[in-house]
């Protein structure tokens, strides 16, 4: 079964274009300098429309997760992580932790992780893997 993929909107297109090009793109407010995610063309902290897109470091730490034992058909049959990482720039992002066993022993809170991109055709998804793995 084909993976369920996002449908970009005009406000989020830069993010998905960035993933295609191997860049994790965030936005920040020019006026109050708040970094935020998911994308929108104004600052959710102060309401200013003066915002800019920038390339994030791709570094994060594992903030929290579950190991889903009833995978959705498009994600296979083995239990897998559904995680939230805390990006070094501040925002939180949902993802899967890949390139490591999907066990509580291997998935340790606060461990450093880094972005890795996987191409699914029209969309490239950002995943995270243990840093240096």
């Amino acid at each position, binding site marked *: 079964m084909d*993976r*369920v*993929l*996002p*449908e*970009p*909107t*005009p*406000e*989020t297109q830069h993010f998905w274009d960035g993933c295609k090009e191997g860049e994790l793109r965030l936005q920040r407010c020019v006026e109050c300098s708040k970094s935020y*995610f*998911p994308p*929108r*063309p*104004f*600052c*959710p*902290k*102060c*309401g200013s*429309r003066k915002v800019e897109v920038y390339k994030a470091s791709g570094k994060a730490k594992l*903030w*929290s*997760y*579950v*190991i*889903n*034992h*009833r*995978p*959705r058909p*498009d*994600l296979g049959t083995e*239990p*897998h992580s*559904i*995680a*939230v990482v805390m990006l070094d720039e501040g925002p*939180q*992002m*949902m*993802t*899967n932790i890949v390139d490591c066993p999907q066990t*509580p022993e291997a998935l340790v*809170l606060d461990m450093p992780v880094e972005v890795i991109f996987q191409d699914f055709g029209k*969309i490239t*998804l950002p995943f995270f893997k243990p840093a240096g793995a």
Partner: protein
Amino acid sequence: MKPKTVAAVGAAETTEMGRIPNMSVIQLHADAALNAMADCGLKPSDIDGVATAGISPTELAYYLGITPTYADGTSVGGCSFMLHVRHAAAAINEGLAKTILITHGESGRSRVGAGGGFRGGGGTSSLPGQFEAPYGPVGPPSMFTIPVLRYLKARNYTVEDLANVAVIQREWAALNPRASMKDPISIADVLNARMIAYPFTLLMCCLVTDGGGAIILTSAERAKDFPQKPVYILGTGESVETPMVSQMEDFTSSKAFRVSGKKAFEEAGIRHGDVDHLMIYDAFAHLPLYGLEDLGFCKPGEAAGFINDRNTAIGGKLPLNTNGGGLSYMHSGMYGMYAMQESIRQLRGIAPAQVPGARISISHGVGGMFGASGTIIWSNEAP
């Protein structure tokens, strides 16, 4: 409605009009909202009430960065916004909020981001559809549970603490002939049950059952003319935070719970020690722990000990989820109705697991995955 007490001070449409292929539905709402705020010199942080149709008020408030004490999602078609104005006027008169934003946005021609979707798995162009659904969540069991490992670590709680919530609620359910699950369970039973989404086993997740409920309200003045013992409303609160659990501001505390609970306590003018009975919507075993802390019954880090010391169990000083809760009584999908039914039964004095002499009860509900909250404080004594 009190006439001549409420006014419109900001009003604006979207920047463009007619054909707008470069904006999705939610951005049309936001564009109009930002223009209306500019029209009257306000910022999102000045707004404390939201109303909208088509998208949920939760999505709207989150997207704009608003923390509301009033959220109206009445959706009855094209005239929804007149109803929003009317409800908002009443809410301002009643002190539920001071400054209420009402928005509309539809990509009727261009159909950009029109999928909508309130939960992950909804429209693939919605924010949850783009930034949560691709990672495989399958409804609440694999989403509502995501903050919990962080919460356990921050609070120094264990999975046994989580399991004990289910164990004690099963003790209450055993007293309730209408409860779906009545057999006693141990912490080991809970931990050894089928794993659903680590660290959550089946017995830490709510039931899936059928049922319904209804409530009829009238003025306190008229209430004494009816056959049943009246249950009065002392105070209320509500709030919304985010349609995306991944974007909760703090994984160890629900902002919607805190805002809703604080408002209800302020309105009621009561202290925590005045509360005889408490219902906290328990879609999963962690909800009562968050609820006890975010409503202020326990300090952060003390809720698990409070439950383990049997304060919320039969004979305890704060009986909690006395119908057995969503974990053992019933859960049809939107359980909040059943929490209020049990508060009303307790204050009428007719509950299967009756708390002797209960005078004040709180029904505290959650919506979505920590997305929204509502709190009602009830009393069987006329205010």
